């Protein structure tokens, strides 16, 4: 391969090699994206931490980036995110798990062919539409029997929950379908009913896949932006464990909603409020990335067991 090879075969090989590297660059672009996300977040977040100490950011209980007295404690925002996550988990995890059991164990082939795409529609609806639904239709209905504020965590949680149902159900169903049929047959052979087989054999056997779907769905709920920005309001407040009802009935502000508020504000330039956007973004990124990673690792482990 010392002299350039201009034979027909040589050109063919060279072209093949050129495409190989071109495609490799495309694949490497994904790693570049991750690096770019980290760098853009870090550069401005580090600037922010020169103005506000990380300790103050991570332990402060007041979030008020633009109004005097300015303060940048991220805990109220994390509280808000936690409330939405817990609320949507209470909706999506049981419903998603039951859906997965139904689809994998009970539904006929034909029914599954209708129900699965119908469920996938839930994840395909733009989140801004869900936010609007929550604000304009769900809140007024709930308001007739609950003391709700116009903006509240409850309607937002319900909507986020509905949005993430398909993430729980489809991954859990995959995990349940991967459970070998011999386990089910063995259980039936012992005289078990379908209920027992589903809950005592299939679900425990698919547990790692189910867990991984839960984590992934919760990570999605943590990062969900438009529903909470429209319907949950903009009142950063700390979790008050003594008043769980009040937490859900009143306006809160998760991390993502705070980012939208700063993003739509007139904050241009290099002030601390603008930079705080990147610090909050970094916090959000680290939390969701870690959760996605854990979910992926758990899922790949269960894949190895049954293949």
């Amino acid at each position, binding site marked *: 391969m010392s002299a350039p090879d201009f034979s027909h075969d040589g050109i063919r090989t060279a072209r093949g090699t050129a495409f190989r590297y071109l495609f490799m660059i495309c694949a490497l672009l994904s790693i570049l994206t991750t690096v770019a996300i980290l760098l853009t977040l870090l550069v401005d977040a580090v600037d922010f931490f020169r103005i506000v100490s990380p300790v103050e950011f991570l332990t402060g209980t007041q979030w008020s980036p633009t109004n005097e007295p300015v303060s940048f404690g991220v805990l109220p925002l994390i509280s808000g995110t936690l409330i939405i996550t817990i609320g949507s988990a209470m909706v999506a995890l049981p419903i998603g798990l039951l859906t997965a059991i139904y689809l994998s164990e009970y539904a006929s082939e034909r029914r599954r062919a209708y129900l699965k795409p119908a469920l996938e529609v839930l994840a395909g609806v733009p989140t801004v539409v869900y936010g609007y639904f929550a604000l304009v239709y769900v809140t007024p209905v709930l308001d007739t029997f609950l003391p709700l504020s116009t903006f509240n965590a409850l309607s937002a949680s319900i909507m986020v929950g509905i949005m993430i149902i398909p993430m729980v159900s489809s991954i859990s169903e995959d995990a349940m379908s991967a459970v070998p049929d011999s386990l089910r047959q063995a259980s039936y052979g012992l005289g078990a009913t379908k209920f027992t087989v589903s809950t005592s054999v299939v679900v425990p056997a698919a547990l790692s896949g189910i867990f991984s779907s839960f984590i992934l769905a919760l990570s999605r709920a943590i990062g969900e932006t438009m529903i909470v920005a429209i319907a949950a309001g903009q009142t950063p407040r700390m979790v008050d464990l003594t008043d769980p009802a009040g937490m859900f009935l009143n306006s809160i502000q998760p991390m993502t909603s705070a980012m939208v508020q700063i993003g739509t504000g007139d904050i241009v330039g290099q002030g601390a409020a603008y930079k705080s956007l990147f610090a909050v973004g970094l916090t959000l990124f680290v939390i*969701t990335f870690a959760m996605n990673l854990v979910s992926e690792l758990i899922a790949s482990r269960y894949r190895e067991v049954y293949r």
Partner: protein
Amino acid sequence: MAADTSDDSAASGFGQISRSKDVAFRLLALAATLIGIVSLAALLLNVAIDAVGWLDWGFLTNPPHPNPNEAGFLPALVGSIAIMLLIALITFPVGVGAAVYLEEYANDGYLTRFIQLNIANLAGVPSVVYGLLGLGLFVGLLNIGYGSVLAAAFTIALLILPIVIISAQEAIRAVPDSQRQASYGMGATKWQTIRNVVLPRAMPGIMTGTILALGRAIGETAPLIMIAAPTTVFGIPNSLLSKVSAMPLQIYNWASYPQTEFQYGVVAAGVVTLLVVLLTINSIAIIIRNRYQQRT
């Protein structure tokens, strides 16, 4: 399916209980399956009823207006479609290229597994974070303008790229290996095999995945807010660098108006328009998928 015990009456009693428990559980699971679908259908019905009278030709061809009767959707509609076309131009070649590399060229080493894990993780990064990436990289570093068509397209293209790659990989993986072997047997090179055998066979699947991803792109709002796309634009974008709005952004803006005419009229019309466009896109994907399935 009663448990096998020696005592007959106990056995039937036990069987009765466990059978009714079985039926109850079956119904509970079915109900859970339907909850999401039914509530979405109810909400969609509500919004469709509210949109009646507001969704007319004037709405589709007018620019936004503070008076609800004259408010229109045209700049947002055109903006969304312009952004989407650009996203398709960016993500399709890059996504397919990456998928071809991972499925056909890469060997199963640490680097490949790392890339794969990274792609899976990128698919789960919140869209608002991609917005910050767009703000820092495209608007800040490369200076292609706050809220421009190009900045919006690049930002959302990066957001849906992992989805395009993953679905293209699945389509390529579904091409039977025997066809590759046949091509090699004819003396074809790897690239010729990919171009003449693998890609044509995988193309319907790749198209379906890409179109579905574009459907997701058209609904993205948070990244546009982060790159400071204006929520209300009165004209149609006339260059890649002009400021652009998009349907979901306009909906977000209108939803914050306090008047009922906006809350239950104009926004509903916007939501219906957005969903109709989305539905059209998804049906195209389904048609491609069905035609492909019939052929094989």
